[in-house]
């Protein structure tokens, strides 16, 4: 038993979530303060730059997390749980919007080319990448976002998306190739 509990800001996400599960609302608020901005940014990128919708989705994610806080069990990774809720909200949104969800099998079947070389100025790379990431097919954009932007591990993404780890690795590799191929179009501009 901890006689002098650590300050909330000094605790890990999992410690805070455990305390929130025991009814400590201040601990939950600390989690919100840590992750809200980043999660809202994730939603902005995944929902087509709609800031209001992203704020609503972020709100909804934390409300769902708050409602389910008592089901949290020790050892569960907090960020993986948070992004599981966020991923499912995005998935439902795209389904409800009747968005064209690209068939991954067609892209999965493409051969992987490891020798794509791109030469670009840094400023051009920024502009090009900003555009390419917005036009990536959704499953690949989602994987890229979860792994490289939100810095979740491959096992965590496999758990979140309910896809085998090998498939996640392979798709991430292909995503990088798609980006490079798209970047090559900017080489001679």
């Amino acid at each position: 038993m901890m006689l002098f509990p650590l300050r909330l800001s000094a605790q890990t996400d999992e410690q805070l979530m455990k305390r929130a599960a025991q009814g400590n609302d201040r601990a939950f608020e600390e989690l919100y303060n840590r992750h809200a901005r980043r999660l809202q940014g994730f939603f902005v990128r995944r929902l087509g730059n709609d800031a209001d919708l992203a704020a609503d989705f972020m709100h909804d994610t934390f409300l769902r997390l708050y409602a389910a806080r008592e089901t949290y069990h020790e050892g569960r990774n907090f960020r993986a749980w948070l992004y599981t809720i966020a991923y499912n909200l995005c998935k439902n949104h795209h389904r409800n919007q009747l968005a064209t969800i690209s068939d991954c099998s067609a892209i999965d079947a493409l051969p992987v080319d490891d020798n794509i070389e791109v030469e670009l100025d840094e400023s051009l790379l920024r502009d090009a990448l900003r555009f390419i990431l917005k036009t990536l097919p959704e499953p690949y954009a989602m994987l890229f976002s979860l792994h490289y932007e939100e810095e979740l591990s491959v096992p965590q993404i496999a758990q979140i998306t309910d896809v085998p780890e090998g498939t996640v690795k392979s798709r991430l590799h292909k995503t990088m190739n798609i980006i490079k191929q798209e970047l090559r179009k900017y080489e001679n501009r």
Partner: protein
Amino acid sequence: MKIDNQDIIRTAQQLRDEENLQQTVRPWHRHRSHLRIPSWLVAIPAAIFIGFILGVWTKDTNQQDTPLTALVDTIYIKVPEPQPQPQSVHQAFPTVQTATQSSVQKRNAHKQQKKAIGRPIAEDNIRYDLLIKN
């Protein structure tokens, strides 16, 4: 400049940071519409209020059940004082008379109808009909 995976990842993360910084995030307490008030803080004043209302209501109903006589402070009944009668020989030694049927009836009727003289009934606002029934 030759672009590799790390350049792409680093640039993507820079773009992410820029976008995240632009976000206006509402504080958590504004998200939560339900206020967390301790239950006892509601229960105790509510119990006091309900008790007060019940007390007032039961007092009202008890007042309706009180007998009408309780509402009357005092009833003054003036009893006629016996008139002093002049003493005479005849009256000191009255003649013995046999009671006739009519005189017995008259005496009995006089006993039953003992008149009370006091305030006029119309002025005292007392429901005598209820008093007699009770």
